[in-house]
């Protein structure tokens, strides 16, 4: 069935899904991995290993002892070499554990399929597995699956849109493991008592729709009843996979600014996240490997690769076939929202789903020219903002004007920058604007507090 709602805006970048027919390849034999102690949105984990310790695949390395944090497990077997601080790809200092491989791939003997008897068990199991949202957001899944009791979801939305150019990791996930995905969906529906699931697939991936329909038919055959899972095709447009856009196109519900999907009783999960739930229930090995797309004109053999978390980007590129020309730009994530790296010795984290290695033909940085008010940014903004106005306010460093233009509602999708004929760095300047507004809000709050306290102390303070 097709979806009826369509959000305004969006852009049509070239799909460049060059790797969608290539089966994923497991990469092994990395000499070492570097595990960051913060791979999720939330406080970092506490490192529980020290140099010299032996670890197996699945051994706990970072303990999650604060709310919102998720444990981190070793992705290879070997010896801990170093616990030190490194600069992450986002530029923040974080603690990291360097593990040298013994090339044995021995799995921790304590990893076995979990037994789940209650909802609490389920949530604990999700947390222990180290799972975060694998679509890129890295939000702790156990928090998402444990909403406040007055806000239980009535619909589970499975994000199989994968609207970023180049990336085909979810696509391959679906082609290769549809059964695990459906298992994951059924588990989530069962424990959260969600009556209905909608899988959203862009209409440029008809195979995905067929695979899911076939898989669902198999279930009917096996269990005698059709699970309440529906596959719907969506228009191919970026950012169709953005949570708010996806919810609107599939259910007609709009998530208000500053609110979460759960506020409109919807749960959105990525296919890879669900597949991991299905797999973990069967095998009990925590999240230690990640499927990612490697693409870009500088690579010899683009494709999808399953790599241990923490593997260094340079090692992954080498193991995946190396480069055929000197890379000019390396992007962690997709072409629309990914981060361009200045070093490539970072260890990958759980939420990474692509590395793009651009050669000279894709690496262009056209100079900015003045805004001609063509309104393409306005027409392309899925959040119905006025990007050129925010850009102006941000460059004028005017927090009041930024607020007037609702700068905080921007989802940083990059559509406006993509569309701008003057090649202005709108998304970047909007991000700067958000920082200014946050600072201004904090300052106003502080002032307010100061005034309140001074009024309390001396009621007759001279005004």
């Amino acid at each position, binding site marked *: 069935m097709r979806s009826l709602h369509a959000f305004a805006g969006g852009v049509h970048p070239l799909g460049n899904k060059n790797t969608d027919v290539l089966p994923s390849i497991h990469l092994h034999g990395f000499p070492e991995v570097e595990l960051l102690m913060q791979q999720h949105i939330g406080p970092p984990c506490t490192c529980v290993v020290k140099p010299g310790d032996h670890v197996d695949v699945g051994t706990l390395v970072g303990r999650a002892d604060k709310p919102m944090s998720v444990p981190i497990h070793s992705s290879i077997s070997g010896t801990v070499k170093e616990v030190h601080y490194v600069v992450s790809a986002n530029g923040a200092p974080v603690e990291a554990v360097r593990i040298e491989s013994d090339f044995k791939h021995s799995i921790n003997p304590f990893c076995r399929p979990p037994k789940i008897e209650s909802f609490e068990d389920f949530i604990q199991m999700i947390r222990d597995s180290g799972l975060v949202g694998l679509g890129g957001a890295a939000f702790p899944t156990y928090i998402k699956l444990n909403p406040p009791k007055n806000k239980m979801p009535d619909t589970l939305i499975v994000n199989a849109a994968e609207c970023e150019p180049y990336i085909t990791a979810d696509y391959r996930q679906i082609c290769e493991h549809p059964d695990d995905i459906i298992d994951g969906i059924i588990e989530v529906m069962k424990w959260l008592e969600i009556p209905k699931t909608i899988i959203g697939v862009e209409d440029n991936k008809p195979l995905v729709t067929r695979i899911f329909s076939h898989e669902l038919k198999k279930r009917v055959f096996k269990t005698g009843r059709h699970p309440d899972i529906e596959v719907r095709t969506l228009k191919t447009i970026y950012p169709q996979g953005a949570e708010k856009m996806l919810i609107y196109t599939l259910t007609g519900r709009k998530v208000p*600014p500053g*609110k979460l999907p759960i506020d409109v009783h919807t749960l959105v999960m990525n296919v890879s996240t669900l597949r991991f739930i299905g797999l973990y229930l069967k095998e009990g090995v925590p999240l230690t490997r990640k499927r990612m797309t490697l693409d870009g004109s500088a690579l010899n053999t683009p494709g999808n690769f399953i790599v241990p978390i923490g593997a260094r980007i340079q090692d992954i590129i080498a193991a995946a076939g190396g480069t055929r020309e000197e890379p000019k730009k390396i992007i962690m994530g997709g072409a*629309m929202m990914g981060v361009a790296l200045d070093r490539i010795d970072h260890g990958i984290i759980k939420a990474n789903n692509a590395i793009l290695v651009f050669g000279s033909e894709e690496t262009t940085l056209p100079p900015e020219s003045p805004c001609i008010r063509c309104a393409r940014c306005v027409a392309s903004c899925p959040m119905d903002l006025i990007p050129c106005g925010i850009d102006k306010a941000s460059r004028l460093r005017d927090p009041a004007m930024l607020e007037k233009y609702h700068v905080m509602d921007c989802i940083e999708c990059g559509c406006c920058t993509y569309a701008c004929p*003057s090649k202005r760095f709108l*998304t970047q300047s909007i991000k700067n604007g958000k920082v200014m507004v946050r600072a201004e809000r904090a300052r106003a709050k502080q002032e307010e507090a100061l005034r309140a306290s001074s009024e309390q102390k001396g009621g007759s303070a001279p005004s």
Partner: protein
Amino acid sequence: MKLQVSHSPHVRDKATTSSIMRDVIIALLPATFAGWYYFGVRAVFVTLLSIVSCIGFEYICRKIMKRNNTITDLSAAVTGLLLAMNLPVTIPFYMVIIGACFAIVVVKQMFGGIGNNFVNPAIAARIFLVIAFPKAMTSWTLHTGSWFSMKSVDAVSSATPLTMVGTKEAPSLWDLFIGNKAGCIGEVCILALLIGGLYLLIRHVIRPWIPAAYIGTFLILVLLFGHTNLLHAPSGDYTTLQAWTDLFYEACYMLCSGGLVLGAIFMATDYVTSPLTVKGKLLFGFGCGVLTFLIRYYGNMAEGVSFSIILMNILTPHIDDWTMGKPFGEVKENAKA
């Protein structure tokens, strides 16, 4: 290994400022050629002079102000071409240069160059010329003499169709449509203008909101309040076919004469001086339509297009403020929070 670091997104659309300007020039070509065909070789020279002087003034200005050179973005060429489209063929050459100077130096560069002018340079220059040289700007010729005539003074003067409405000499609708009439170089051939407009729409350079609202509003007003209008038929009532023909004849006549189509498609849609949102664009077009109607029917000028557009240009920042929508998902109850 030296890696380029830049903010996302890392892919960009192909369109650039100069590719858009190039498309506008291409879209104006049919009307330009039609103008040359009807008005002869002098029109060719007026057009080229206007374009060359606009580019020249842009170059000199940027040099003097020690700013980067912007003639390659082609916006000065577009201004020059649009200005020529709005001039009568008989205009003395020095006036063309004065107009170009006013458009580029005063209206565009003194306000900061491309993107910062608050009125359309070509329209402002045309209005400036109309006020400064009213006679030269309102003497029209029909193409009667030799195609190669370069003289400006001995051309046969003629009234524009707008001043002839209802009279015996009024040209036929077909002549109005294909451009066989007196008027400015670029405004006569409606057919060519429509072809250009279609090209702009197909290439996504403009969107239909402004031209549609402009022309739509104007036509509705003419039908309701024109000389022969829906409320009052000259032949009594609307039971005869003739009465309906008269009604639509006037509407079509008004549409095809003067600079309405040129203005609606090429001048009112100027990015810099028109609103950003769809709502704003509709409002802008509506305003232009109302003003053009009022000036044509109740003002003492025959032509109201340039004045209407320039007035709405001035209102554009306010329209942008009024029509700024709510972000996606914003609902009434949490609009305040």
